[in-house]
């Protein structure tokens, strides 16, 4: 006979204000099997938990029902509580009378009635609960970092530092990401390359880090602790082990008209190229879309000049499959395309540029060698107009991104300041909606741009930019001054909104990690678990989770690394015992369950069974690997004979709940 204890929580007034907790406790005491029923202000408090533990011992309870907040909140807490009192933690059920009852109903009578029914359902279920023991699954002590920007590099370095091997998969031929393209960083104005490239070198020299560049993740299988990931390493037509990075091939290649993506198409590179001087790995790659040899079989100049004999026109994509215990997503961001914002004449004039393009125009390694020149005629610009929030803070949908891109206010202040410092003969206008500078030394930085460098900050958006007679006619409104402005500018710089990298969405599907409507990865909890995905074993680093500046990205990268290290130091993980379990006597061996299992947890064996008249029958029966099974239950419905059942959510348990609710 079951001996069930019922504990009704007031949750202060959260439950007690709308649910008559005393009546619930009294009514549920009458349910069959219930030997003890009580109520208390805060069941999750230490006193409340002790109350439960004492009751378990005193009344020799065989099952516990707690009527309280959502099981998503405190199921784990209460499982520990009952376990400490010697009860199997799975002999506990929670009736959610807060989120699903007291908080949504106003009428006390109705809410009390519903709370009783929810309690009854939990009692009906707990009658059928079986003690379950959690299994263990091993942890592969290796991490995968997807994306080799500053976020990925920092995470990898921190994990490697703790002694665990880590692979970085980068889709470009070099790591470095967006930060490598940036000229100076706010609010200190130190050069981005000076602080990034040492980290890139550290990563390449760290024994624990394996950089798989020019590669992408193709397939992800498994689960936390034992992921199996297939990585496609694209053919770069250069043997990485032989290439010395001397760069001779990139000087001799006759195909000179390839837009240089590192400089955002502002200049050209060759068909064989090293993205930039400090690239890691410093190995050339051939662009198959432009290489004459690969396209028509005629040329071969690079192979002739390469003294190391590294050129291999026959190189093929390579598939690498490796096992990992944890995966970190660090896929970063891209500025949005600006074709929808043609009022700013981005596609009409080369002198209208994005801020990232402007970084290259200011950079000593950029297309102009660091001298600010107008892309159209190479002249020195005198009047520069910055437009903020291009495509950010819109109404969503067609208009643009609904979020604030966060970094634009600061980098625009930085750009304005740098121009004024280098070229005091310029007039710089910044059109803003709001200036947002929360961050250490950020507002001071912005104020310096205004006060010391004389940048004209004007509240109001630019309405239209018209290229005319070599100038850019900027029409804007000074909302605070109450006047319409028409500025003849030499250059217009647009602070384009940033969005997640395009590869993030398909990756999220492979990882079964959830995303928001903007394709940013969702964190497990916005406040308390900001660097973990809700999918176990998947961690988030950098701008793939939301717009971030460099200091924040690095902080989050290290936080993600700490979480990964915390996982990898474990030898095994406790798995949920709520897994599928077949009844061999009823199993047809028909493979229906195997076909719907997303984890490949089901296999079949031929097993002898005693037949009639002392004969032995060999039958094919299903076996579930409890370490692999995640407990979704797809198999239980696919099984026609009902041989497959799910522990913790068995057919009988769910039907008992249905019965209790519908009675």
């Amino acid at each position, binding site marked *: 006979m079951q001996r069930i204890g019922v504990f009704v929580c007031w949750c202060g007034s959260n439950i007690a204000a709308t649910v008559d907790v005393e009546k619930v406790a009294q009514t549920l005491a009458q349910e069959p099997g219930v030997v003890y029923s009580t109520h208390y202000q805060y069941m999750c408090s230490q006193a409340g938990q002790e109350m439960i533990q004492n009751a378990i011992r005193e009344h020799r309870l065989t099952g516990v029902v707690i009527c309280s907040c959502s099981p998503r909140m405190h199921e784990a807490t209460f499982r520990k509580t009952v376990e400490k009192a010697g009860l199997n933690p799975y002999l506990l059920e929670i009736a959610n009378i807060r989120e699903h009852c007291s908080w949504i109903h106003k009428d006390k009578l109705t809410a009390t009635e519903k709370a009783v029914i929810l309690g009854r359902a939990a009692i009906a279920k707990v009658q059928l609960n079986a003690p379950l023991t959690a299994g263990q699954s091993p942890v592969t002590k290796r991490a995968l970092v997807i994306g080799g920007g500053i976020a990925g590099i920092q995470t990898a370095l921190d994990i490697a530092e703790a002694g665990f091997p880590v692979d970085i998969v980068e889709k470009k031929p070099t790591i470095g990401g967006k930060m490598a393209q940036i000229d100076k960083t706010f609010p200190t104005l130190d050069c981005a390359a000076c602080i990034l490239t040492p980290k890139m070198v550290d990563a390449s020299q760290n024994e624990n880090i394996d950089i798989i560049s020019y590669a992408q993740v193709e397939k992800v299988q498994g689960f936390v602790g034992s992921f199996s990931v297939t990585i496609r390493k694209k053919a770069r037509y250069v043997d990485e082990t032989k290439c010395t990075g001397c760069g001779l091939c990139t000087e001799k290649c006759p195909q000179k008209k390839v837009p240089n993506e590192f400089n955002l198409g502002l200049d050209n590179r060759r068909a064989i190229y090293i993205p930039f001087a400090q690239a890691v790995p410093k190995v050339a790659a051939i662009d198959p879309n432009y290489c004459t040899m690969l396209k028509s079989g005629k040329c071969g100049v690079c192979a002739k000049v390469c003294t190391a004999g590294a050129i291999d026109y026959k190189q093929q994509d390579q598939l690498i499959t490796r096992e990992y215990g944890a995966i970190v997503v660090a896929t970063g961001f891209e500025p949005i395309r600006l074709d929808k914002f043609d009022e700013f004449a981005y596609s009409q004039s080369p002198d209208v540029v994005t801020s990232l393009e402007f970084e290259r125009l200011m950079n000593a390694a950029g297309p102009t060698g660091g001298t600010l020149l107008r892309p159209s005629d190479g002249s020195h610009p005198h009047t520069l107009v910055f437009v903020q929030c291009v495509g950010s803070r819109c109404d969503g949908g067609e208009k643009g991104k609904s979020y604030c891109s966060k970094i634009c206010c600061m980098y625009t202040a930085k750009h304005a300041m740098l121009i004024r410092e280098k070229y005091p003969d310029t007039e710089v206008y910044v059109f803003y909606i709001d200036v947002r500078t929360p961050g250490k030394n950020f507002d001071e930085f912005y104020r310096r741009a205004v006060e010391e460098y004389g940048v004209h900050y004007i509240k109001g958006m630019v309405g239209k930019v018209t290229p005319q007679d070599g100038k850019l006619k900027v029409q804007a409104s000074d909302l605070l001054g109450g006047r319409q402005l028409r500025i003849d500018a030499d250059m217009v710089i647009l602070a384009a909104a940033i969005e997640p990298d395009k590869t993030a969405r398909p990756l999220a599907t492979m990882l079964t990690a959830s995303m928001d409507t903007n394709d940013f990865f969702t964190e497990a909890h916005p406040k308390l678990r900001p660097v973990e995905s809700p999918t176990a074993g998947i961690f988030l680093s950098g701008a793939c989770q939301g717009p971030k500046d460099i200091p924040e990205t690095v902080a989050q990268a290290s936080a993600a690394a700490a979480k990964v290290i915390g996982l990898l130091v474990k030898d095994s993980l406790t798995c949920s015992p709520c897994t599928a379990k077949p009844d061999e006597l009823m199993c*047809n061996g028909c493979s*229906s369950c195997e*076909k719907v299992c997303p984890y490949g947890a089901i296999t079949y064996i031929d097993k002898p069974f005693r037949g009639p008249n002392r004969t032995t*029958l060999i039958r094919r029966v299903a076996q579930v690997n409890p370490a692999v099974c995640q407990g979704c239950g797809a198999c239980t419905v696919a099984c026609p004979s*009902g041989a497959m059942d799910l522990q913790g959510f068995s057919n009988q348990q769910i039907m008992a709940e249905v019965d209790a609710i519908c009675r």
Partner: protein
Amino acid sequence: MQDRVMEKAAALLESGVCTRVLGWKTGEFFYDVTPAVFTSAEEVRTQMVYNPFCGPNLSKYLIAESRKEGKIAVFLKPCDTFSFVQLQKEHRIARDKVYAVGVQCDGMIDMDSLKALGLRGVTAAREVGDNLIVSTLYGEKTVPRREALSLRCRVCKSKRLNDCDEIIGEQGGDLPSDRFAQVEALEAMTPEERFAFWRSELSKCIRCNACRNVCPACSCEKCVFDNPGSGVRNKAAADSFEENLFHIIRAFHVAGRCTDCGECSRVCPQGIPLHLLNRKLIKDMNQLYGPYQAGADFDSKPPMLAFTPEDPEASIITNGRDGQ
């Protein structure tokens, strides 16, 4: 055909290709043909029949028979071979223990069709060309064979013999069939009419389990309705709900596995058109998830064990396909 089938069966036993033959023999009445296992050529020559009343689908018996010692030869009509393949797909039949002989089929006759033609006191029937000569207590009558076909054979979907080791007669192909006409007629009714139709049909159910026992897809080691742990165990339907429940669950369990052999309706002593439930699901699956024929091949994935991200939402049913 009768002679060729019998000779083949006898030869297979005599040559030792098999130790047993699964075929048909006449039961209490001449039209009451039942499945039987023969172990000698003599048994075959004296008892085995192959005539227009050999409706029973033998494939299901292979689940048990193929587990026994020695090889068994089986005679399968085209529609039976679909079940044969489907059961193999579900790993229920040990193929290496079976010697499958496909038999050309021109459609089976049943007594209901003869009665519908106005024939009473039928004592025997034999085929002569395209005609059927029926002996009755009131003398001999000749009827065109196709008019005496059982209802299911009139909408035969395929004369193809799948996965046979040998074929007697000619291999056939898929046929154009309007087997969904009855389903469509029901769909065209109002919900009230449909409810009334199924109530009047299913209320006849006596839960004899004949449909379940004959169905090649209903071959579970233990049926959920016999399993106390399933929560739906019941031996006899106690009220209209349980009459519905049994048939809904049964239809659902065989969805994607039912080859539409029509045995359920054939054996129902109450004459409930049970195949109309299965056919509805087949029709829906074809329409919603692309054409699929259970047992037609070994490789295709059954629709209930597959999906595409573009599948229609359930709201196309709950909101009404025609926007009702």
